């Protein structure tokens, strides 16, 4: 009985190490961010100038930074703006991108040409440069950066969805659906969309990792999340001066960013493999 269970778990493709381990890491970080107020040992923004740059101890699990703030608490709270921002970026990009991609792929013609050429122009700019332009026009804030990155991420998702719809719409079941008199919108969203969703989800996951990285880069440069809000990139920026004397200040947020991004990438790769094996 027990052996059977173990065997069953072993053969469960969703429990493969390339899916379960990154999922576990991400789960820990996301839970930490969600329950930050309960898990944090200190107020992340309380200055304590008497105790700056302390080494990790029982009181301060990861030590303190150059203004005496508790690094562990800031690490918990610091994931929140980036996570919310990244979800915002990917949400905006995928809602608009998937919709445009489906419409362009299905109807083709003039609307397809217009949208795709616009996105070609968009893709011609380097990602961060376009974000700089946006921030220069509308001011420094997380909202503006999220909006900018959302627009920058749209073309990829649009193109992917469009190509999926282009192959899917020539399949017989779509023709059969048309021959039974369904409306275009119904065919597009009830019949074609579910058949594309798997591949789109993998792209969305990859975009999520990219969005976190880009948001962090922009916040590090001082364009996104503004100090004193706790944010990993802001922590990196503030700690870089004391890197040599007290490396934890920089290493903690740095390693956190790396872990999250690598986990998302491995997870999306694992899901891709899982999906491909399911199709065979």
């Amino acid at each position, binding site marked *: 009985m027990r052996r059977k269970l173990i065997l069953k778990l072993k053969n469960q493709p969703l429990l493969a190490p390339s899916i379960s381990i990154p999922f576990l890491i991400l789960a820990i970080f996301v839970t930490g961010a969600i329950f930050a107020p309960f898990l944090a040992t200190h107020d992340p923004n309380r200055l304590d100038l008497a105790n700056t740059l302390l080494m990790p101890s029982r009181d301060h699990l990861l030590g303190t930074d150059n203004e005496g703030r508790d690094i562990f608490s800031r690490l918990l709270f610091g994931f929140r703006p980036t996570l919310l921002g990244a979800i915002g970026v990917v949400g905006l990009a995928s809602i608009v991108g998937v919709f445009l991609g489906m419409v362009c792929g299905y109807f*083709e*013609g003039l609307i397809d040409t217009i949208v795709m050429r616009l996105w070609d122009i968009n893709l011609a700019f380097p990602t961060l440069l376009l974000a700089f332009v946006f921030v220069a026009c509308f001011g420094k804030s997380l909202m503006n950066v999220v909006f900018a990155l959302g627009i920058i991420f749209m073309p990829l998702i649009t193109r992917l969805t469009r190509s999926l719809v282009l192959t899917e719409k020539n*399949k*017989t*079941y779509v*023709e*059969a*659906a*048309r*021959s*039974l*008199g*369904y*409306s*275009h919108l*119904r065919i597009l969203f*009830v*019949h074609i969309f*579910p*058949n594309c969703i798997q591949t789109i989800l993998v792209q969305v996951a990859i975009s999520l990792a990219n969005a976190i990285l880009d948001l962090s880069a922009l916040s590090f440069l001082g364009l996104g999340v503004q100090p004193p809000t706790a944010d990993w990139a802001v922590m990196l920026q503030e700690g870089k001066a004391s890197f040599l004397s007290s490396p934890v200040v920089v290493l903690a947020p740095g390693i956190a960013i790396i872990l999250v991004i690598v986990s998302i990438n491995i997870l999306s790769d694992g899901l891709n493999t899982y999906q491909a094996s399911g199709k065979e």
Partner: protein
Amino acid sequence: MITMDKVLSISNLNIKLHTNCGTIHAVRGINLDIAKGEIHGIVGESGCGKTVSAKAILRLHNDLFTNYSGEIKYDSKSDILKMTNKELMNLRGKYISLIFQDPVQSLNPLLKIGGQITETIRAHSKLNSREAYIKAVSLMEDLGIHPAEERFNQFPFELSGGMLQRVMIAAAISSNPRLLVADEPTTALDVTMQAKILDLFKEIRGKTGMSILFITHNFGVVAEICDRVSVMYAGKIVESGNVKDIFRRPAHPYTKALIESIPKAKQTGKRMIAIPGSPPELSCEIKGCAFAPRCEYAEEKCFSESPREYKISDSHINLCHLKK
């Protein structure tokens, strides 16, 4: 044959498909009338324009890449080739339905089969979901999908090809269309299943008086279920008439050759008869009769002049220079 009530009448239909490899003149002026309640067969080898014509009846070709000329009149009134998108949507599935060759490919793999039947019912009527469910289940029972209520919640991959073809038929006839176009509906099935599905078509016709346009490359199937038959070659209908006339007195050399090449059960020790050569490319213009290069009776005239239709009898039409 009663030719009073025409469900569908196609006159001088030409279809040009624009593809990456140039324009293909796939259908070259066909005339076809389908009377109420008849089963009309279209026979021909692959690439002769059967499927292209069938799809044109519902205008399923992409309008951007297709040129139509001629007329397809539904119920002697409205021309399908001039319909707006909205009218077409109302026509498809409600008045004319199409069944495809491969049932496994023609159902959405991610939706339950019951949902795909009720979807059609609800698209063309005002029934609510409960009423549509009842109608779908009784339709499935009628078509031999047992146990219907259990099958209703299954996905296409859980059913066999024959069952899926019954599901397709259920969806297609759910709104009692006047005309059912069946595009090689039995080709992907094995022979026993084929016989059952053919019986099903006859039964449907008997019960509802639906006309059926039956497209196939199998003369045996035609003999079994059709009332009238049209033989297509290179985008043209070369001979059309009652099944009996066509089988007993085939007039066109192509029809003759086709019937001769049906394998016979008693024939042993002899080579099977085949038509030499292969059909012409439909991307180029064809001078004279398209069949002339393969025809054993061909004369000089056949290579230069296109043959005209002439009537052997009221219902029997032949497209050949050699009138005899």
